[in-house]
């Protein structure tokens, strides 16, 4: 269960970014791809710090629903990491462009997920029909998404 398994997913196909993004003399940093970043809990490989000999868990999905949720969680996490960075370096164009890529991909995946499996937020999609699906779908602490 605890092995790296990265760079092999076809949803990364559209990522036209290099894994070694220069930071335009703002901060010298290197970025993980979203999958590795999400597994590790850290988008910035220069900040990554391993504890003892523990490796991050490799998250995998058992079905299409889990896969979609996993993918949107990865992209949303990468966007969030860039959000924190951009709070401090609001003029970094490279990072802003990457943030917007991840953000729009996240939003597209959320829309796709909500259309199939119900709303992730109360302003989201999939709330048209009774029974009220916000209340009906499983709560996150009860749901066992992953193996």
């Amino acid at each position, binding site marked *: 269960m605890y092995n790296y398994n990265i760079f092999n997913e076809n949803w990364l196909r559209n990522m036209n970014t290099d894994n070694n993004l220069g930071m335009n003399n703002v901060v010298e940093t290197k970025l993980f791809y979203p999958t590795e970043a999400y597994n590790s*809990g*850290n988008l910035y490989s220069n900040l990554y710090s391993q504890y003892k000999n523990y490796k*991050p*868990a490799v998250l995998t999905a058992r079905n299409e629903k889990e896969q979609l949720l996993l993918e949107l969680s990865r992209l949303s996490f990468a966007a969030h990491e860039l959000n*924190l960075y951009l709070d401090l370096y609001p003029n970094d164009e490279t990072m802003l462009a990457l943030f917007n890529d991840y953000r729009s991909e996240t939003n597209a995946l959320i829309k796709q997920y909500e259309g199939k499996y119900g709303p992730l937020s109360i302003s989201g999609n999939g709330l048209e029909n009774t029974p009220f699906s916000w209340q009906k779908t499983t709560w996150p602490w009860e749901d066992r998404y992953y193996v």
Partner: protein
Amino acid sequence: MFSYNKRLQYPIDIKKKDLRMAKYLVTQYGGSNGELGAALRYLNQRYTMPDNRGKALLTDIGTEELAHVEMISTMIYQLMKDATLEEIREAGLDTNYVEHRRALFPTNANGVPFTVAYFATTGDPLADISEDMAAEQKARAVYENLIDLTSDPDVIGPLLWLRQREIVHFNRFKELFEYYEKKLRNGEITLERIENNINNLNNINSNSLYDLRKNNRM
């Protein structure tokens, strides 16, 4: 305002009941270095940050910490799910059961309830951000202690992940601290609070020197 997303920031799926681990883990819910304290500290400090960098970072990290409160709560809930009274007694959670049955209640690992004293807000941006940097390091250390206390990969995975978040947040706070320190030194921003403090401090020192001389004590 805040709105809720009906998903965890990182998945939790604990299959094995472990009440002792639940007892330890509750410290990252209601302990002095826990996620609840972090969330409320940052969201409370943001109002008196001197510029938009600080306001944005504290808002966004504070909001993320709320997602970590949910992760820790989920872990405690899943670790305790379907526990019998006998198991609760054996793990020493019977003292929690008396008041709270199987409900979550924010305390540290010794049962000391959460207190707003953990907010540790001074209104001085440099002092507050130093507090936040220390808080992230302390939480990292606690996560390492917790990892040492379990062998369940379903528990270790999320703890490693949360530990890594402390490291990222620490570095962001450190960058903000250095930025404000430099701006202040160069006179590019004025931190009214800090200037007042320095003036007050000078007054206090000269007054007390005067008093001491007057009384021939030096």
